[in-house]
């Protein structure tokens, strides 16, 4: 049994405490915007934000989320597109799109901690894999989102 808040909603799940949050979100809560990419914390496709921090949900047991607040891609744009999503659309970042939920959540957390990231900050802060190689456009989108957030 685990109780936590997902996208503003109190959620109780009767699952094993060691089930990774990723699979609880996808298979139990049908929040499939968060993706499975590697299952080993290597690619970041499963990135969600827990209490403000970008976290790889495939390496986060549900038991460790007890009482915490989880934000997924579905929650980010719930009441209108977030600045990061707007910037992503303006910059035409996605290609196949599979990793993009995780990338956007990672960018959201990066900008929350550093409203004006340099290219070097983006290199350090954005470690998720994109097999389509959308990095140059994601970099531009992060700079754009930083500007949008300030206005």
């Amino acid at each position, binding site marked *: 049994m685990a109780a936590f808040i997902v996208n503003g909603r109190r959620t109780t799940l009767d699952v094993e405490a060691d089930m990774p949050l990723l699979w609880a979100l996808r298979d139990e809560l049908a929040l499939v915007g968060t993706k499975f990419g590697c299952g080993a914390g*290597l690619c970041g496709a499963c990135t969600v934000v827990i209490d403000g921090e970008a976290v790889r949900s495939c390496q986060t047991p549900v038991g460790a989320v007890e009482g915490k607040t989880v934000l997924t891609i579905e929650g980010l744009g719930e009441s209108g597109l977030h600045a990061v999503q707007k910037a992503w659309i303006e910059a035409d970042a996605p290609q196949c799109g599979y990793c993009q939920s995780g990338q956007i959540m990672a960018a959201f957390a990066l900008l929350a901690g550093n409203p004006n990231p340099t290219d070097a900050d983006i290199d350090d802060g954005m470690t*998720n894999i*994109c097999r389509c190689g959308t990095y140059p456009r994601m970099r531009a989108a992060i700079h754009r989102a930083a500007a949008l957030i300030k206005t």
Partner: protein
Amino acid sequence: MTIALSRRAFVRAGLTAAGGLAVAALVPGFAAAAIASGEPWGSDAAFGPEVGPFVVVGPDNSITLRIAKAEMGQGVLTALAMILAEELMCDASKVRVEYASAHRNLVDGNVYQSMGTGGSSSVRRSRVFLQQAGASARERLIAAAAAQWGAAAEACVASGGVVRHEASGRAATYGELAGAAARITLPTEPAIKTPDRFALIGSPLKRFDTPLKATGAARFGIDVKLPGMAYAAVANCPVFGGRLRSCDASKVTARRGVLAVLPVTNGVAVAADNFWRAKEALAALPIDWDFGPAASTDSAQFRAEYRAALDGPLADGGGHGDIAAALASPGKRVEALYEVPYLAHAPMEPLNATAHWTADRIDVWMGTQFPEQAIQLAAQAGGVDPAKVTVHNCYLGGGFGRRAVNDELTQAVEISKALGRPAKVVWTREEDIRSDRYRPQAALRMRAALNGDGAPAGFEFTTAVGSITRSLGWGKVENGVERQAVEGLANCPYRAGALKVLVNLRNTHVPVMFWRSVGSSQNAFALESFIDEVAHAAGRDPVEYRRALLADRPDFLAVLDALAERSGWGKPLPKDVGRGIAIHESFGTIVGEVAEVSVRSGEVKVERVVACVDCGHLVNPLTAAMQIESAVLYGLTAALFGEITIRDGRVEQGNFDSYPIARMADAPRIETHFVLSGGDKWGGLGEPGTPPIAPAIANAIFALTGKRIRALPLKNAALGA
């Protein structure tokens, strides 16, 4: 997401109730997103007045275009809709797009022609018939209006989704005309527009699928959830060609959620009520494999075998002139051996498929590059007539060739049939990497004989490489040569007194297949590295030497000259940065790339890439540029890190720690310039950006360090600390 099981019935019912399109994605704050649905698969049947199989006009005046290719990141939903809209004369940004039905293509006389997505062919091979489909639909709408108004068709004009008769001032929307237009037979089909009359094609249009992908609303195969669905994890036999001997199911069947342990093609599956439970149970399952005859092979042995295979037996892969005389001539000789490893595709979405088998039909949800073949695979696995199979194609979380053969689908159908309920198979990343069908390993021996002035008297290129044709069992290899083995070599653009390509197709037990840019991925590395070597042997600048050898290829010269200018070839660079060039034609498109590469403390970093591209014409410059950027990064990953190795018959790599992919910090600045020659040329775009990047990087490293890279990946090269 829960999908109604009989979606066909649902769509039809939805039609009756709503009188229009049943599926639309709602993305808050971005109304235009309704043009592409999160669930892109179309229905098998018409669901409104159909003005030809590609175009449906709803009573609400909506226009739906059916796209007979799969969206795997290349922007095909948008580009093909632009082609249809160019002729249909409607606002491309207001049309709705969905996938055409592969089931319908099968049972309705191949109305969508080839639905396979690959070979950088979606635009160039379907443009003419898509233009025709749009033009024919337009003329039917005009004819319907003309008949209604008693006017001549020639006096009516279609534009912006409306047909107008200027003389009388009458106008009707496509929606009002669609029913009548569907019954029109034209005496002759209209001629399609020539490029000089394009109004839409060639101008950038934002991708229809971007909002869906920025909000998590795009549905990939892995996201599908059906009522009562089982989740299955699969262990494929770790050695290709081996088989399951037995497993002790009793060790895991009591675990929470586990439904069944069952043998499947190539291995064994555990089904459970949640994927993680299935995966964990599979990890705890004692499995006894018969590894088969390849269990003692390894990469060192393969490397030696491919090298030895260069000495024959060799088949004739094409060429011209007298190579023996050229090689016997007295001038300078240059010879080099290049080697490349197996490569995995590693799409971000691991392979998966969901099947719902019943005795008289099968429904499949997955991302496939080849839905016609998926129908056949499902039918075969489930013992059902192919005409009773429907493939609901989803967004593809990357394809790169891998999703052209759907090994995972066979397993999903087997499991659904055995359990009598819908089943979703997901391969873990480890299964995805270890059970791939790989870019072939190869060795290439390149020889040049030079005249006194440094011009080539002859080139002899010998390749020892795995046969894709044999590995897939698709057709037969004729005379020891297949196109994939020699592409990029047999059509070498550089002028030489003689050219000879020799081939030894040699397969190991490791399956091989199409990997983004196929044979050009290794052949361009060898040829463009070798030309660089030859230029240096002749004491010439790499660009100037190429220019001399391309004197009778104005198409190459235009790209080369643009590239030299845009990249600032010859201009000074910081002391720890080198510059390298490569140019290559594949899939009908010439791409030249200059890479600026730094080596600091032995670490290679590609700082900047300038790409010049001649694909003849462009449909959507935005997605075209994105494809070049993507192809560069895909090839860069392979050049720097990509390597699948074999030990005890099995793939050693399993996840992104052992099979690294370029990340943000590895990504160069990429500048793409189109140098369009127009005319009749329509080249592909998904793949041609990949082949030049590895040799451009290797040549830059030579320019900087004097070390010639003749084996990939670069991570294995000692570049000093």
